[in-house]
């Protein structure tokens, strides 16, 4: 199964920005990543405004350094790492904390969104799922977000969070089991 990640499209945008100074491509890239990067950063700095500022700054440096943009092999990972580093630096400045553990990041998930047209799940099932997600350990929630919402590969998640691929694999399996169990409870009740 494909994981629907538009790698090709992103590479094309990189090329257009690097070669043609293409503002439309730059804007598209911004639109594509802004939301998920901001959420990721907000999990670290605990402020939406600060997070948006950090992401905006990272995008400015992307433009300033656009001549070398095509050298970046995995732009999504690059952006996430840049946002992570800048967010941690900001947090250290603000709170004078010495260490920031990625395990403590309180990342928000988009609520268990379902297309109103699709109606796969009842309101009750959705609520169950949201509750399980809310109570996931921070790291598990973050892995779920990166895998589901950002369509990241295990390897990318592992690099970003400084953990092993095995840990990603394991965490995600546990999370899905929990979610399925929560769903199963509502399904079985109905029968």
């Amino acid at each position, binding site marked *: 199964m494909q994981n629907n990640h538009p790698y090709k499209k992103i590479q094309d945008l990189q090329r257009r920005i690097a070669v043609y100074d293409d503002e439309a491509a730059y804007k598209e890239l911004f*639109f594509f990543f802004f939301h998920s990067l901001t959420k990721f950063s907000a999990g670290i700095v605990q402020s939406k405004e600060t997070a948006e500022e950090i992401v905006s700054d990272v995008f*400015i440096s992307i433009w300033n350094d656009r001549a070398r943009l095509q050298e970046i092999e995995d732009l999504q990972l690059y952006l996430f790492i840049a946002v992570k580093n800048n967010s941690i630096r900001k947090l250290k400045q603000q709170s004078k904390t010495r260490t920031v553990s990625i395990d403590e990041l309180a990342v928000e998930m988009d609520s268990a969104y379902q297309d109103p047209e699709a109606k796969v799940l009842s309101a009750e099932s959705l609520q169950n799922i949201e509750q399980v997600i809310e109570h996931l350990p921070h790291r598990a929630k973050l892995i779920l977000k990166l895998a*589901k919402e950002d369509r990241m590969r295990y390897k990318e998640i592992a690099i970003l969070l400084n953990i092993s691929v095995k840990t990603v694999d394991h965490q995600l*399996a546990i999370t899905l089991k929990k979610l399925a169990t929560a769903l199963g409870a509502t399904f079985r009740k109905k029968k």
Partner: protein
Amino acid sequence: MNRDKIWHLFARKLSGESSRDELHELESLIEEDSPLKYEMDALTQLWEQKLPQDAEYLEATYHLHYEKMKKLGVAPVPAENEQVYFETGKRNSFKKRRFIAVFGFVSVLLAAAIVFLKSEDQTPQKKSTDQITHSPNEIKTKRGSSTQFKLPDGSTVWLNADSKLNYSKINATGIREVYLTGEGFFDVVRNPARPFIIHTESIDIKVLGTTFNVKAYPDDKTIETSLIHGSVEVMVKNRPNEKYLLKPNQKLVLMNEQYAAKREKDQRIMPVNIPIVFVKQINYLQGDTTVSETSWVRNKLSFEDEPFAELAKRLERWYDVSIEFKNKEIEEVELSGSFEQETLTQVLEALRFINNYKFKYKVEGKQVVIF
């Protein structure tokens, strides 16, 4: 053991990490344990759904981001101004790109400058379409407006600013004749049995079925007929023996004698070496498909190596202003470029920029002085 393995396989499948073997293994495990199928189906569908983008929020955020870049002096040239560049294709020359880039830069400067220049607020805006009079069999555009319409025989006409087309001679008997003052772009329905004739003050154009542009303003130096495709025959009125057959991508340029006479009276220098009628190639904007002679049809003001004095005439009609030169030297300078959404002030600033600020201008109401 199987119960945990299945979740690993399922998570890998959702994340696109599964090998072919793992997908088969997952399938057979699900078959063994059928109740799980519902949960997995539901989770798979949920996994595929993405929160729709909040485009308005992103648009606003990007705007702020862009403003921030402007303040830092590193903002990209907005895509609108680059449009020309995409239209004219990949093999665009550096010259044009630089000009466009320069123009973007100028508009950034302008945004800051306009705050200080209150008089600039009255800068006339680009052409509108509310200045069109339509009486029976005649259509007329004022300065600063243009229009498109269909003639009774099905042919389409785009009428540029400050122009008039009388089509009372198109009727059921099959005659197709119109009278034009100003500039029009014609897409004539093909009918070999019924030629379409355009009369202007000094030339008549006979066509069978074709697309072409006629520029015949009384106060312009030349009268031009540019052919896009098909074929046309041009007859010069006071020279009955001369007929010119145009091929596609050619244009016929006729010295406007009225204009020449008027100029002589004004005791200005009259260019003596230019033949009164000549045929030359259409100006393709660098690259491929955009023809500068007809770009006005698409609401774009394009010019290739055009003397400033001639360009000023077009700007006058385009922005409904009158332009006066106090600097004779600058009148002769040849300019190239393309404008679409810009205000008159923006255009003048851009022209100033490409001329190394060799001239200044002043806009007061509808009067522009260049010095």
